[in-house]
């Protein structure tokens, strides 16, 4: 088991695509509504290009709320700096119009389909030979077999991996926004609504330097309103999509100086997508 990843989404300046749009706007990939999506036209390949506004370091990309692509769909990432431009026409390289390109892998992060029916993709930069800080990032989905690509949210950022992982007592739950009640004659009175997953992780032995340098800034910038991406175990696994969460932090956002050498903080979120 690998340590969890925590991913603060970077701000996306613009979203473009050489692929035709069938439904929704490309900018929908930058908002947090799972129902407000972008859908490509049907074809064999769909490309989404993110303009981050400046060269930024990105080592992790999540594409959430996917529907449409078949099981065998593939994905690769391309990145180009401001100097290289967003033409992506010169092939792989470091010159103008050239770009960095990842290897091609499966689009879907796992093989077990989440209960929502919406799939997830996860890309992480290789430990060596990864892209430099770049402004333009592309997700290229291939082998669509004349299907469309639909996605709700793209999350791009530099992940934070705690040196000491969360401890046992991690809680995995469901928040049902519906309501069930009974009359005083035990008649079922029910209102069905959406059900979202919840996650509560406790990092009980975080290093002080790590808390001060990263965790505190993470909590201070995200607060309880902006979402965060969490992968509780990024190891390749059929259940990997169920191990990915994206949503706002809830509950107490503090950090406790628990012992002389360790801090404790919690990540509790409601999974939006």
């Amino acid at each position: 088991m690998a340590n969890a990843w925590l991913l603060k989404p970077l701000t996306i300046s613009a979203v473009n695509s050489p692929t035709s749009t069938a439904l929704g706007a490309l900018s929908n990939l930058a908002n947090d509504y799972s129902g407000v999506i972008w859908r490509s036209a049907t074809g064999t390949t769909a490309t989404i290009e993110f303009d981050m506004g400046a060269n930024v370091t990105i080592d992790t990309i999540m594409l959430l709320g996917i529907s449409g692509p078949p099981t065998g769909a593939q994905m690769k990432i391309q990145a180009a700096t401001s100097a290289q431009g967003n033409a992506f026409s010169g092939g792989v390289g470091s010159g103008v119009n050239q770009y960095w390109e990842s290897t091609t892998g499966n689009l879907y992060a796992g093989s077990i389909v989440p209960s929502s029916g919406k799939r997830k993709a996860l890309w992480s930069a290789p430990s060596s030979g990864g892209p430099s800080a770049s402004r333009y990032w592309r997700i290229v989905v291939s082998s669509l077999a004349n299907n469309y690509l639909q996605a709700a949210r793209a999350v791009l950022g530099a992940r934070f991996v705690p040196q000491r992982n969360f401890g046992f007592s991690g809680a995995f739950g469901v928040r049902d926004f519906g309501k069930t009640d009974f009359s005083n004659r035990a008649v079922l009175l029910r209102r069905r609504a959406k059900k979202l997953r919840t996650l509560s992780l406790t990092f009980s032995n975080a290093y002080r330097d790590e808390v001060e340098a990263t965790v505190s800034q993470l909590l201070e910038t995200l607060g309880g309103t902006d979402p965060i991406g969490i992968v509780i175990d990024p190891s390749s696994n059929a259940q990997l999509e169920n191990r990915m969460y994206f949503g706002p932090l809830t509950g107490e956002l503090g950090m406790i100086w628990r012992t002389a050498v360790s801090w404790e903080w919690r990540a509790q979120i409601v999974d939006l997508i």
Partner: protein
Amino acid sequence: MDVLVQIDAWDPVASAAVTLYASSIDDDRVCHLNGVTWWPAIARLPTLGYDFFGGDFDSSKIQAPASGLTMAIEPWPNFPRYIFANAAFQLWTGNAGDAWGSWTQRFSGRVSAQPQISDGIAELTFGVDARWLDAPLLPTYAGTGGAEGLAAQKGQAKPLAIGAPRFIAGVMVDQVNVVFQLNSAGPIQDVEVAFDQLTRFPASVGDYPSYALLVAASIPAGYFATSKAAGMARHGAPLAGQQCYHVQGDNGGPDGWARLPGEVIRRIAQLSGGTGKINDASLDALDAARPWQLSLYADQQTTARDLVQRIAVSVNAVAGVTWMGQLFAAAVPKPQPVNIYYGTTRPIYGGTNAMFNGPAVIGGSQLTLQADGSDLPPIADVDQVPIDAPFWRLALSAERTWTVHSPSEVQT
């Protein structure tokens, strides 16, 4: 059931219309229906209802449905600056996964006022747009002479005669030629009788297709002629006293000579600018349920809202405006019982398996509510509430005399 709302607001900074699409659910099967993006922003759904039964059968005005909802403004950064007062408001309901064609529009109206915005939540109130019912119903004289009356009549209401009103006075528009206008909405069916001090004139000596031809006609003293097309009557000589007429009134509407309650309501609504905003099926049903001939005469300014309500009440019907902004009228049905079963385990009334009948038992049950959950819809709670003694009503009918003559106005 999910809800979609469209609001057509105005952006005063951009000086352009802006349309807001909001959804009650964050679901891709709903948020992109009909080719637009419905932002999942509705925080509290509106409650739609009708409130038109006064209980005491008074002639209170027709009530237009109104409600409110709250919605998050996050999807629209410029929301606070938009102008919402009087913005068109439409609401649909449906189920996620249904095609747009399967969604049903439930409401069409106007936002009542600029919303209150607090903590990123806007509270909007909206209602059906029924302002056309309040427009002045009767046109007014220009006071330019001829058919438009004397200068002193400028701004005065022109008369409206519907059905077969008796003893109506009309309005003199031409003193020189002794011309009276009986109806201004359109042609009339006939003038049955003309009176001077309640003394009958002989039958009309002719009918002329316009005011000009009526004035140009030669009419002997002691006789009268008509211009049904202009809704006018002209006498051959000045009258000795108070005039009045038995008129078969307006026949310019789609029903021709409107006689039945629904026909009369439809004609009034049309004259008030309600074309396209009338639930014709309900008016036809009212005519079938209340096939009684009515008459109406108005020579003082009034509104369709007032007249329609008076007509509906007179035949024990309810008039209202639907959520879609359509005027309707429905006959008040006979009371029907609703049975409420308390179940076998909690008997009331002397230990019997109780059944609670509604008011007067006329006809069979329309609905059975089972508090023990053995039937749908599920019943949350059952309470007995205090109720006043039932209202009662005595219906009278008569052929109304619209102009009541004093003894001095009657020729002896």
